[in-house]
């Protein structure tokens, strides 16, 4: 046991080691990077499901219900729940567990709360690395619950295979639905609190918004003649995925089965169309690019004396040099 690395302990199913590693990953420590490198080859098996939506739509309660459902299928479920950090004190109250008490006592579930720590976009800097740890540790479903998001927190779509956007009746008129970027990232739409009045209007607004993006009846020219195609028929034989709209009531679990089925259907769709590999590849590419950027900047600073850099900044400050010229010379000089 004493000779096991942290990564090996995690692979052997040690939950305390898993919790410790997640803390290291969150702090981006050298131990974390070593462990992540070790775990990487074990990853790539989990279905990453993002759950996002405005505050108060019931994301945590839905995650709770979905997890219960996936447990019935005997899948191991990990949950990463992100809540905002205070921009002033850096502290945070992470309250998502309050809605997930049904999952307590089940060794097939692991819930980790994380603070956004100043990161925008609905996730924290290290959320992706955390999901990798869960993936490698053998959790088949990893649900990522974002910060209560509104219109622009779309990073989740880059991380997750399937993004569920949670709406609720009475949150806004259809103009909100038109402008909200968050709806464009939805692979599945859930209207939670569907027992509340206004659910019809919410569904209508979402449906019309979806129809703008994916017209259900579209005209096209076939041998020079206008034809009408039914999107449902078209979707059947094409690679088009039209986000289904699922009504749910997370407090009593109504509609959750349908939502879980839609999530599974989307995964199957991605796999059959090659979209899964495409997403995976894009995500890994952007991860490598981010690491590369960071490493290059670090190497650049290591090779350049701090004095030189400061004097360049001073010259820019005195308007003797523009930032663009400065960067060009700094980069070219280093290469010479």
């Amino acid at each position: 046991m004493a000779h096991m690395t942290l990564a090996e302990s995690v692979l052997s199913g040690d939950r305390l080691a898993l919790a410790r590693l997640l803390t290291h990953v969150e702090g981006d420590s050298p131990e974390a990077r070593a462990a992540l490198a070790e775990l990487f080859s074990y990853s790539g098996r989990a279905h990453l499901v993002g759950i996002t939506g405005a505050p108060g739509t019931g994301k945590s309660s839905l995650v709770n219900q979905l997890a219960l459902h996936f447990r019935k299928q005997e899948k191991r479920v990990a949950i990463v729940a992100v809540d905002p950090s205070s921009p002033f004190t850096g502290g945070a109250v992470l309250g998502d567990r309050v809605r997930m008490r049904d999952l307590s006592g089940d060794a097939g579930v692991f819930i980790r709360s994380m603070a956004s720590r100043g990161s925008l976009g609905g996730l924290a800097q290290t959320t992706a690395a955390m999901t990798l740890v869960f993936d490698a540790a053998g959790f088949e479903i990893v649900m990522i619950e974002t910060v209560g998001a509104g219109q622009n927190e779309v990073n989740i779509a880059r991380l997750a295979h399937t993004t569920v956007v949670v709406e609720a009746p009475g949150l806004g008129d259809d103009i909100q639905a038109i402008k909200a970027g968050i709806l464009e990232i939805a692979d599945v739409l859930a209207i939670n609190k569907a027992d509340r009045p206004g659910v019809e209007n919410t569904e209508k607004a979402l449906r019309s918004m979806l129809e703008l993006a994916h017209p259900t009846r579209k005209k096209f020219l076939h041998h020079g003649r206008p034809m009408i195609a039914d999107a449902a028929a078209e979707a059947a034989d094409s690679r088009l995925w039209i986000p289904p709209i699922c009504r749910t009531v997370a407090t009593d679990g109504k509609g959750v089965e349908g939502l879980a089925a839609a999530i599974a259907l989307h995964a199957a769709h991605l796999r059959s169309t090659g979209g899964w590999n495409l997403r995976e590849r894009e995500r890994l590419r952007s991860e490598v690019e981010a690491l590369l950027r960071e490493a290059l900047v670090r190497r650049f600073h290591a090779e350049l004396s701090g004095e030189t850099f400061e004097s360049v900044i001073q010259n820019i400050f005195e308007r003797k040099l523009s930032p663009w010229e400065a960067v060009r010379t700094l980069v070219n000089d280093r290469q010479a």
Partner: protein
Amino acid sequence: MTERKIRVLVAKPGLDGHDRGAKVVARALRDAGMEVIYTGLRQTPEMIAEAALQEDVDVVGLSILSGAHMALAPRVLELLKANGQGQVRVFVGGIVPDEDVPRLREMGVSGIYGPGASTEDIIREIRDAIQ
């Protein structure tokens, strides 16, 4: 690379439903820059220990107003230890009679706070305890 954040689990074991104190403390700890995981009402010691493990916290704060602290606090301490988390500091807030205070301390509770305790004291003592 980032500074180490103090992570605190705030939990309400037992059956009383008064969580105002727990929420005030949670908020004060947040304002002191800590990350507070709030678990809500009616938690069993098992649920609390499990959450403390998953969240890898440094501190567990128990809010108990039911009078059951002499049963609940040692049970939580015991479970933490059994899970390999003996280093986690446990604090108790609520209604604790004076004569129970030394006994709880002996069991390993790091701090005990009654009505009117100042949040500054709690914050300072948490920081000192996990040094």
